[in-house]
């Protein structure tokens, strides 16, 4: 609604502590529509904590998270989903025994339009199959697999496309990808990276969490580095090199965050 003047996501002065441990301290972050932001940092730097705060699973101790100017408040994961934030988890986004349609629509099923059946939870499978085909087209694997195939019979790359498809098929605005290529081969990784480009062209904002510097430098517009719970760098990738990013991550190099 306010593209251009207001960031899609704004995180302001966020703090999260666990007991005495400062997991996150004074985090400020903005993500704009159509932007791909790399979120990097060593293990324990606070990436997961930040993502969990943004997705509503943790309530921050201080600071504010807004999407399109609307505060997340303490509404939890449900509120985050309503605002259009979607997380694609490393391992948790798919149900292997389910088919493609089920994986795209689980817990968001299209139900019969007749009220009594709708209340019963009667599924409109035809509508979901059609919707699933549209989503497969959107993520670039339309026509290559059947929407009735079980996810466990798909390749790793196809699975990741389904997981991402579920997220973008619904939010259409902002997706967090948590190590989307960690388990993939070279070609399949390529496909996921291509998909990220395609989504960016559709105006979807993407936050990519990855340990792969090469990858981050290739697909991202901007990199945010966390170290020990603080943001130590936040800059466009122009002029950045892998060693520099590693320097931020390890603390050898000081950013201008």
């Amino acid at each position, binding site marked *: 609604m306010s593209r251009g003047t207001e960031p899609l996501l704004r995180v302001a002065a966020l703090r999260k502590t666990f007991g005495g441990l400062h997991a996150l301290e004074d985090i400020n972050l903005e993500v704009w529509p159509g932007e791909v932001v790399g979120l990097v940092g060593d293990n324990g730097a606070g990436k997961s904590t930040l993502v969990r705060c943004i997705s509503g699973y943790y309530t921050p101790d201080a600071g504010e998270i807004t999407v399109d100017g609307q505060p997340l408040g303490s509404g939890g*994961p*449900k509120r985050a*989903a309503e605002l259009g934030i979607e997380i694609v*988890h490393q*391992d*948790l*986004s*798919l*149900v*292997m*025994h*389910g*088919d493609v349609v*089920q994986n795209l629509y*689980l*817990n968001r*099923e299209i*139900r019969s339009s007749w009220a009594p059946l709708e209340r*019963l*939870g*009667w*599924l409109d*499978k035809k509508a979901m*199959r059609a919707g699933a*085909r549209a989503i497969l087209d959107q993520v*670039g*694997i*339309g*026509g*290559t697999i*059947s*929407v*009735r*195939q*079980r996810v466990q*019979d798909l*390749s790793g*790359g*196809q699975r990741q*496309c389904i997981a991402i498809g579920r997220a973008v098929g619904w939010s259409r605005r902002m997706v967090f990808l948590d190590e989307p290529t960690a388990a993939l081969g070279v*070609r*399949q990784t*390529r*496909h996921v*990276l*291509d998909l*990220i*480009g*395609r989504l*960016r*062209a559709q105006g979807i904002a993407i936050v990519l969490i990855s340990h792969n510097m090469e990858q981050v430098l*290739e*697909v991202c517009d901007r990199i945010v580095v966390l170290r020990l719970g603080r943001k130590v760098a936040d800059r466009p990738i122009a002029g950045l090199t892998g060693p520099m990013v590693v320097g931020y991550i390890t603390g050898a190099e000081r950013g201008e965050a």
Partner: protein
Amino acid sequence: MTTDSEAVPTETLAARPSTRKEGVSDGPRFRWKDLTVYLGFALVFAFFAVTIGDKGFLTAQNATSIVSQVTPIALMAFGAVFVLTAGEIDLSIGSIVAMAALFTALGLRHYGLVPGVALGILTGIGAGLLNGLLIVGLRVPSFLVTLGTMQLFAGIAQISTQLQDVPIVNDTYSNLFGSGTIGPLSNAVVWLVLGFLVAQLVFKNLAFGWRVMATGSNRASARALGINTNRVRVGVMVISSCTAALAGMIYAGEIHGAVYTLGSSDLLTVLAGVVIGGTSLFGGSGSMLGALMGSLLMTMIVNGLVLMGATVQQQIVVQGIIIVVAVAVSQRQPAE
């Protein structure tokens, strides 16, 4: 990387020359082991038809008898498909059969038809809620919870009447749940068909069925997708115990009374039928039709052996062998 990749498919994922149209109705991958129960059924049927075809196996009367015997087993099997697909197990169904049958019989004797039936159904709901809430609340595996409640319910059934039989003299009840007919169909068949249709519908056409599958496939994933897995798990336990209660009420209707031994040998028969029918013991996938066929297979085996003049002990041995063979075929895990 730029966005001109819009229409360029990558080789691995999209370059396969697509002879099929987009969205072809190419279903789940075919697996031979999914046919275990049908092949097994055909084989056993053929065997009995040849060996004891002339001893009454092939008569319509015998077919009716098999169907009326299978009804309670199959109903419990439908419940077990929900439970196993959700990644749980219910060992207490046999005890619930006895408990529900006795409570129904007592209700009929003291209060009449409607309260008697209501008491039976409430027994099922109550037992399932207890199982489900213990599993979810105590965070104890269903195997252990229902191992305990199996004993608990059996004990309650025995205490409730001091081991005495409770006769049922209510003819309406016996007709409804036992020997009555609707037109040309015996009520046993009606219960069976009705049970199958409802179970299949809930399993495949309602959102609940999908959630059961997801919960059993990977509970953490299901939760991450926003599914209330605890509600699903309590739900399947209630479904399971209600099918057991209904089975108990049907037994009671058939024999015009209830006794605490009802259902005591059903647990293994039910689980064997379900598992042979292709439902995974590890959650995530199940088949109602397979469960129906598996129950029919188990019942037909007993029926055939009886006609052959086998002793109860011999029947048990044969059943054991068939279970091991069938399970080995239908549940074999891929090599490590």
